[in-house]
């Protein structure tokens, strides 16, 4: 049995005084898992990912990342292990050119400049953007920005990759590209999406979030063919399973 990378126990969370967005959810994620979190808009998918990297505080229950409890004091260590790719690449990229943005993380960890350079080139190669280093970020297309934002995370060599709605706003070619890149990342990855075809192509396990709880946790095959349950949580069968 591969060892546990993320362990969530009785996690509850709400923004302010409002209703609970997440209500006592528990799950564990292992080294090679590729987990897709699905659910309707507003089900709390993004909230869950942000909790895992410690961007939100004031939750109840416990979150452990590679045995380290997520709390203020441990954030630095947790974040060295987890890479989080934002839904909106525009907010993730803030440097003038691609190279500096991808180098930002490694530089902050105080790596020597040769190592930074090695990592930047490797990360760009993994998203197939070799030769993009001098390009100004604001001149990139939406799909290229997404790939660069993934490279900015890969350059920090995380053990775990979290991605919020990675396929949103990608054209078919970049989408295929992304599916391949995700396939090549052979550590734990957790993605959220309401694009079930994308989940079908990239995940080996699916969690369904519904009304603050986990309604289903298991293999994609069963749930993605279960029209009734999907309809109940406000989702539809993946296209690739409906057309024959």
């Amino acid at each position, binding site marked *: 049995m591969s060892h546990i990378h993320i362990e969530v126990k009785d996690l509850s969370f709400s923004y302010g005084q409002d209703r609970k967005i997440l209500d006592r959810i528990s799950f564990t994620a292992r080294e090679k898992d590729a987990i897709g979190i699905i659910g309707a808009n507003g089900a709390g998918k993004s909230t869950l990912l942000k909790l895992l990297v410690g961007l939100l505080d004031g939750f109840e229950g416990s979150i452990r990342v590679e045995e380290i409890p997520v709390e203020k004091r441990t954030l630095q260590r947790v974040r060295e292990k987890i890479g989080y790719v934002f839904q909106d690449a525009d*907010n993730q990229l803030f440097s003038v050119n691609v190279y500096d943005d991808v180098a930002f993380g490694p530089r902050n960890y*105080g790596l020597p400049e040769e190592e930074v350079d090695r990592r930047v080139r490797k990360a760009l190669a993994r998203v197939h953007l070799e030769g993009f280093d001098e390009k100004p970020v604001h001149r990139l297309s939406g799909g290229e920005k997404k790939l660069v934002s993934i490279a900015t995370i890969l350059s920090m060599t995380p053990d775990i990759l979290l991605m919020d709605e990675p396929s949103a706003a990608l054209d078919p070619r970049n989408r295929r590209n992304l599916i391949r890149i995700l396939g090549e990342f052979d550590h734990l990855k957790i993605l959220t999406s309401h694009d079930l075809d994308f989940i079908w192509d990239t995940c080996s396990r699916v969690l369904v979030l519904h009304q603050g709880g986990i309604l289903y946790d298991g293999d994609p095959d069963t749930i993605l063919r279960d029209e009734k349950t999907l309809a109940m949580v406000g989702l539809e069968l993946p296209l690739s399973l409906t057309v024959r």
Partner: protein
Amino acid sequence: MSRISGAIHEMQTIEESASRDQWVNRLHPLVKFLVTLFYLVCVVSCGRYDLPRVLGLALYPFVLFELTDLPLGQALCRLRLVLPLVCIVGIFNPLLDRRPGAELLGFTLTLGLLSMLTLMAKGILTVLASYLLVATTPVEGLCAAMRMVHIPRMIVVEFLLIWRYLSLFMNEVQKTTEAYRLRAPGQKGIAMKYWGSLMGSMLLRSIDRAGEVYEAMCLRGFTGDFPSGRFPGAGRRDLVYLAGFGAGILFLRLFPVLVLIGSIVAR
């Protein structure tokens, strides 16, 4: 192109020119920062009526524009919003102080006029020198330099975030005005009654985005420090630049070059 997207475009080209691969850009940011700071002090400390000395100091930006082949015209055009502001400062001085100050080509310049011209020249020169610094140094480099001279971390981080926030805000302004214009064709500008709600939504959205940008930085190990690994110790080139420009500026500050040249020519 609308005025706003024009402004965004200009900010981006300033940042792009800052990351060009060119010898001035490659100089150590601390060296450029110190030279600029020294220049600003020299300009500001000139006497109220000491126009010749201030004009002599104008040599520095012009030499630098020449060396960096940044177009001066473009710079003036980009600074067209700021320059009138710095020029307006002394505008009443000629009315307030009519004592005779100097003779020029048979005309008598009053002290008021002299002090106005001196103030304007000082304003323009400080703006140009700051522009040259920003246009040849990436913002991270500037922050790293500020940290090296022990400007408090809080202030430097604030500077960085405001810099980033500005472009986000202008971006939101652009999106919002475009959305407005598409649904109000043929209208010039934005009707006054919508200003409040548009402004509010732009502020909220850009603050949200700025928050996310800051989170993205923290997730990638940003702790408010600017790693200086990228800028290894200053090299020979940097020291030559520092010494050369430092001495040049000091010379211009100590000796009113224009007056000297004038007296030589007159003789």
